[in-house]
């Protein structure tokens, strides 16, 4: 593959990635889609509580 084609391909890949990320961001903001949804996290604390200090 020559230099120009390789360069163009890389630029196309980067542009596609960026476009998808921008689209994803717009979608997430429009629908309130939070990537770190608190309800998905399980907290397993000890019987003494979250920060037990002796």
């Amino acid at each position, binding site marked *: 593959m*020559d*230099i120009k084609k*390789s*360069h163009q391909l*890389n*630029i196309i*890949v*980067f*542009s596609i*990635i*960026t476009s998808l*990320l*921008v689209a*994803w*961001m*717009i979608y*997430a*903001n*429009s*629908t*309130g*889609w*939070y*990537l*770190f*949804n*608190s*309800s998905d*996290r*399980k*907290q397993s*604390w000890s019987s*003494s*509580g*979250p*920060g*037990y*200090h002796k």
Partner: protein
Amino acid sequence: MYFFDTHTTVCPVCQSVVSFRSNATNINTCSNCHSMLQRTKGEAGLKTTHIGYNQTLANTTIPLGARGIYNGKNFEVIGACYCDMTRFFNNRFTILFTDGSLAWLTETMGFYAILQKAADVYSSKLPLLAGMDIAQDKIELQKGSQQYLVDKSKSEKTYACGEIHSPDTDGIFTAYELADGYNQRLEVIEYAKGNFEVYNILYCTPAELQLQPLNTTAALVLPCDSCTKPVQIVLPQYSNHVVCPACFAWNELQGVDRLKSKNKKFNAFNPLLPVGSCGQLKNIDYKITGATRKYETGSINTEWTEYTLYNPQNGFAFLAEYNGHWTYLKEVKINQPWPVYQQEIIVNNEQYVLFNDYTFRIKEAAGEFYSTLGSGTVMAKEYISPPEMYAVEKNDTELTWYKAAYTSNQEIFEAFGTNATYQHGIGPLQPMKGYINMGLLKQLSLVAFTLLFCVQVFFSLTAKNTVLLEQNFLLPDSLPAKAIVTTAFEVKPRLANLEFEISAPVNNSWFNADITLVNKQNGKEYPLDKGVEFYHGYSGGEKWSEGSTSTDALLSSIPAGIYHLNIFPSQGGNYQINSFSIAVRSDVPMWRNFIFIVLLASIFPLLQWTRHQVFERRRWNNSPHNPFNSEEA
């Protein structure tokens, strides 16, 4: 320039009629006896001159009678001078425009230019040119323009045919080419001592001039002066030296009918690409006319092969092969002075970094050459911006810039049917696999991050941040077995995030709220388990604290509807608390989303940058100007 009245006169040798088409030319060829004849200001008739007529050399790519266009004006070639400048041949054509004006068209080693008389020249400074050093001294020949010398050459012999203008008639003159560091070039011709003419050099291409017709030149075959075996000279209009393919003697072409041995013999040299082979490279049909093996002075094993390529319309180019890496070079007329100390140069807004500076000599040679090989050591510098490079060479008489580009083995194979079967290290201009212009990627990354930031800022500014619930709760001494149920609230947009802010006055204790968001209409539940803790104390002579009395949590994409919360509180630690509060907001900005997406967007450029750094370190290991060494030191 003197303008003559008469246009037709008689040849003093054969009495034939000699017609001048321009009243500004003073030398013409008798079409019958080929005598070169001169008319002189204030004198009637013609007399013969010392300038020779040579029909063989006259057979250049541009014949008399060729027509072209310059600046929208049609012209015709009515005369030509072929000047042997020792190092090269310079062809000067007299062109007559349809409006009767006259100009020179020059061609040197495939470079074409129109010469037009320069105005407002400080003529008193012209004699200083003879003492100037190439690319070092500057001179102000025109107001506000500092010029430095890029080439100094002397015409030893001149042949002519047709009509020309020449202040003297011995064919000997000195030509100085000057550049101003920007875009202006001047040519000063010193005919006899103190007799100067100054021209603006306006470089152009045969295609721009639309020259028609163009000739192909005929090869010469002459006996070697050393072994008498026949030696073919493919480009007699350019070449002045040739290596005999039988005895490898170094011959000088004298005139067009004799080779003279220069008492120098090379060893047998069989370059990878044979001299005489043809191929299409960079979309140009080239013939290999010569090959040299060069070495860096002071270095034991730094050797490379350089091929001379020729195309009638595009002139000369070069192909260098070092350790299996190929570089295509073409002379360019850029007005950069000799870079004495510069570690980098800027050409057309592109930065090129000094990779190598060295002097070289010729070890072996095959084929024919327009330059006098081995006549001295040449200083060279190479500035790279892979896969391109600007290289500059300087000796006592010229400063020459070349633009170079990396050429793959595949391209060489497709062009000439053979290539280097080996490849060592990273070439100075070699692009890495999966090449991408890092400068452009940097700019695009900046654009991408700015775009993502703008999108985030837009949604942050337009976020409604609606408070749906803000309530304080009292905690009894013993925690209730039943859930605390909040008042109902309405989530309005079709889908929205919900932010929960939980506060409790914990003090060396913890509080936890097991919250369930319940849709009153369909009973769907969204669980959330979140707590706060705050501890502080005094140990080791220092105060410490950790945790916080408030925290927040986000629920994603909650559908519109009427909701309430079921809260199961729990607590522990040294101090019991008796209240806590919860606030619920909908449609809040989500900056953690933005940070995560930016991190994702960074992966591709970071990956490319890392690959680029590793590759560049390997490339620069071969350079005495390795920037990575200075970074590490």
